[in-house]
């Protein structure tokens, strides 16, 4: 992809039009060339510009979202009537496992990181993410893991032990064959990707903010991303360990989960939920950032209580690590311990309610620009609120005895995840789509999309609360007609079809608007954060002149002095590194440019991972191509080194 004349043209009308002179046209052209991805098919695989990778990442996760949605439709069709015959029990097990695994591992967590890798550098005034090649590698690894899982599914090797794959059902004796191995290996892929993205994002946020953007001035969205990715560092290792132990149990006969040889089935549950519960917050916290961005813009004022919002997010992150046992109340763990986890699970509602109150206060005291993004965000106040309240019910040990593993839980988790993450995410799509593509999404289709989604969602999932109370356990592939569950199930299926229709409208809206939508200005919503200071879509280098920040909403507030930065190279990918807390200028850094080796390393890693499903020796011979690819990835070119040494300034 080379820079089109259009992009270069628009690049000239960027940030400086509000803060000072831009670059001379020649320099701007050089800069755009420097940051562009190479042309051709090989160039396509060698691209590492954070916006290119993030766009692909978003599209890929969205494709997985649609696939997961189709699986959900299959589930609902099977359950629409008693004694359904749409899927057999074996297919059904695979389908609901794939649905859960797709939505959790291939959509919800990565999509947040994907959006973040696009927006964070723009919001903090950086030209790139910190480790652009690793960012590309993380994307490719993720994509290959997802493709592997779906290839397996189409080959009838789809995992069938549920998305949390409890041992011993997922263990060697009760899941013969390779189905669960593919699931466990998919975990390895997605965790690897998520962990790398976490390192990329944390470093970007801490070291690459524009001068003047102290921690205290960081947009709330960036705060949520920072906190989330710190959580990733400590949560994801648990599931990696759990799934590695599962794979070795299945492949080389270790006994982690074999009670007869000293192992324990609950070890899996502890490890899995030590990851699994924070995971819910990995999914839920970034949307809090979407909420804060959108609510501020559409109520035309800063969000109430910035410090309270930040502290709430941090408190949520800490508490999230103290709740995992509430997934295990029905096991025979000691009662006293369970009460502790009940208390923690109830207390995590406090920071969330603080945030909800702050947003309501913002709306109350603001002036409201009623647009589609705001609609999606308002849905949060109904859906997530309901999901949060049913969460309080599940946090109680005694109530959980009845509600656990019933359709009530299915309703609860969809209310939390869709209300807390998917609705704000759609709001975010509508909000930032002009920034991503340079065109507005249709407002009319957007409203249809919203109302169908909102109504369909409640029709689909509200009845499930009742079904659960009426005794319907989750993960049943059918039910006898005498149970009296048929009407509500049929209603839920109708709701699911309505959601499908609304998704169809969304796709139509995106495809249509991408080509024919109204052209977006650099700041179509009148927002206050830095990403709206550059053209839509942003230039390849993001900021032709890096701004200096003097407040939390730099586009709303008076510019101070100095207003912008000069002295970064145009001929190579140079970025400005600043200090962690105060964002004082520190040094300049020459980032690496495009490379095919990130992609090829991902291919080599895939060979190792897939090979190791079939033979443990793949870990040995598969390591050779990985080592070679990784070395070539880092091996510098002589001429570049010479130029670097030439331009070097020692500390």
């Amino acid at each position, binding site marked *: 992809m080379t820079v089109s004349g259009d992009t270069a043209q628009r690049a000239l009308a960027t940030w400086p039009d509000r803060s000072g002179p831009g670059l001379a046209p020649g320099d701007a052209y050089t800069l755009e060339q420097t940051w562009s991805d190479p042309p051709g*098919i090989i160039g*396509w695989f060698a691209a590492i510009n954070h916006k290119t990778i993030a766009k692909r990442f978003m599209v890929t996760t969205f494709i997985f979202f649609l696939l997961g949605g189709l699986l959900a439709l299959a589930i609902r069709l099977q359950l629409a009537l008693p004694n359904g015959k749409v899927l*057999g029990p*074996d297919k059904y097990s695979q389908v609901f496992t794939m649905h859960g695994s797709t939505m959790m591992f291939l959509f919800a967590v990565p999509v947040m990181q994907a959006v973040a890798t696009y927006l964070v550098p723009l919001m903090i005034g950086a030209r790139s993410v910190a480790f652009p090649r690793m960012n590309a590698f993380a994307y490719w690894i993720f994509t290959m893991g997802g493709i592997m899982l779906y*290839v397996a599914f*189409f*080959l*009838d*090797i789809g995992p069938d032990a549920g998305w949390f794959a409890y041992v*011993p059902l997922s*263990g*060697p*004796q*009760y899941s*013969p*064959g*390779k*189905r669960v191995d593919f699931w466990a290996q998919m975990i390895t892929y997605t965790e690897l990707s998520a962990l790398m993205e976490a390192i990329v994002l944390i470093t970007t946020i801490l070291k690459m903010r524009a001068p003047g953007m102290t921690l205290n001035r960081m947009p709330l969205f960036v705060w949520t991303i920072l906190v989330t990715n710190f959580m990733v560092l400590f949560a994801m290792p648990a599931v990696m360990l759990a799934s590695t132990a599962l794979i070795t*149990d*299945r*492949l*080389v*006969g270790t*006994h982690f*989960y*074999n*009670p*007869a*040889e000293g192992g324990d089935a609950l070890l899996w549950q502890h490890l899995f939920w030590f990851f699994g519960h924070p995971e819910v917050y990995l999914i839920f916290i970034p949307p809090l950032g979407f909420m804060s961005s959108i609510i501020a813009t559409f109520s035309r004022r800063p969000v109430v209580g910035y410090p309270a919002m930040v502290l709430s997010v941090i408190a949520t992150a800490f508490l999230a690590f103290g709740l995992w046992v509430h997934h295990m109340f029905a096991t025979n763990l000691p009662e006293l311990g369970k009460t502790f986890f009940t208390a923690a699970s109830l207390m995590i509602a406090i920071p969330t309610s603080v945030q909800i109150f702050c947003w309501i206060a913002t709306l109350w005291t603001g002036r409201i620009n009623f647009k589609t993004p705001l609609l999606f965000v308002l849905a949060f106040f109904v859906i997530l609120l309901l999901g949060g309240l049913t969460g309080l019910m599940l946090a109680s040990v005694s109530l959980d005895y009845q509600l656990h593993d019933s359709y009530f839980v299915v309703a609860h988790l969809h209310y939390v995840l869709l209300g807390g993450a998917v609705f704000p995410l759609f709001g975010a799509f509508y909000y930032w789509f002009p920034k991503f593509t340079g065109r507005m999404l249709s407002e009319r289709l957007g409203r249809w999309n919203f109302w169908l989604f909102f109504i369909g969602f409640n029709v689909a999932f509200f009845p499930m609360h009742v079904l659960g109370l009426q005794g319907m356990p989750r993960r049943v592939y059918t039910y006898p007609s005498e149970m009296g569950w048929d009407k509500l199930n049929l209603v839920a299926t109708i709701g699911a079809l309505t959601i499908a229709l609304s998704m169809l409208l969304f796709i139509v809206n995106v495809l249509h608007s991408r080509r024919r939508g109204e052209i977006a200005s650099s700041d179509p919503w009148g927002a206050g954060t830095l990403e709206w200071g550059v053209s839509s879509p942003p230039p390849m280098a993001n900021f032709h002149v890096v701004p200096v920040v003097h407040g939390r909403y730099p586009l709303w507030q008076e510019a101070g002095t100095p207003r912008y930065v000069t002295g970064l190279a145009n001929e190579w990918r140079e970025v400005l590194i600043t200090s962690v807390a105060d964002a004082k200028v520190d040094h300049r850094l020459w980032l690496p440019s495009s490379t095919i080796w990130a992609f090829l390393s991902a291919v080599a890693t895939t060979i190792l991972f897939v090979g190791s499903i*079939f*033979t443990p020796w793949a870990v040995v011979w598969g390591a050779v191509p990985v080592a070679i690819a990784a070395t070539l990835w880092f091996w510098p070119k002589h001429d570049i080194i010479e130029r670097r040494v030439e331009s070097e300034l020692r500390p």
Partner: protein
Amino acid sequence: MKARELMPALCLLVLLFLFGCEREQRPTRAPAAASAVADPSYAASGKTPVSNRYEENAYAVSQGKTWYRAYNCNGCHAQGGGDIGPPLMDAKWRYGSDPGAIYASIAHGRPNGMPAFGEHVPEDQIWQLVAYVRSMSGQLSGSVAPNRGDNLQAAPPENRRKKETPTHEATPAAEH
């Protein structure tokens, strides 16, 4: 974007995948015939070995292992190490190591103690047992043979056993 050019190839790939993978299927009813039925004189007749399609299916082999335990094959053959009956995890086969011969042994019995299970165990389950019995000496591929079970380990799991080269041990004449 180049992605669009890749689409037809991707579609083709997806179509290919729809054919599925026999190794992983969970047949809930017997395939038309797991194999040709073997007759008792099979081993002596010297015909080509009968193949057993369950040897390609991990689920069927694992079912075979369930029957092996439930029907108390361990009572005589122990965990395959042999006790009253001959060991099943070594290279020696009195009546031949191919599926047909093993089927005949289970279904029709053998002299000196092996009862005939043909009346009691459905044909389909016998074929699953045959597949499992062959996995005990490493005759099946490692990705089909059972992994370790959730019990005390008496021997390495079937999928990590060394493949024994079957030798046909001449049956002592006295036994006939």
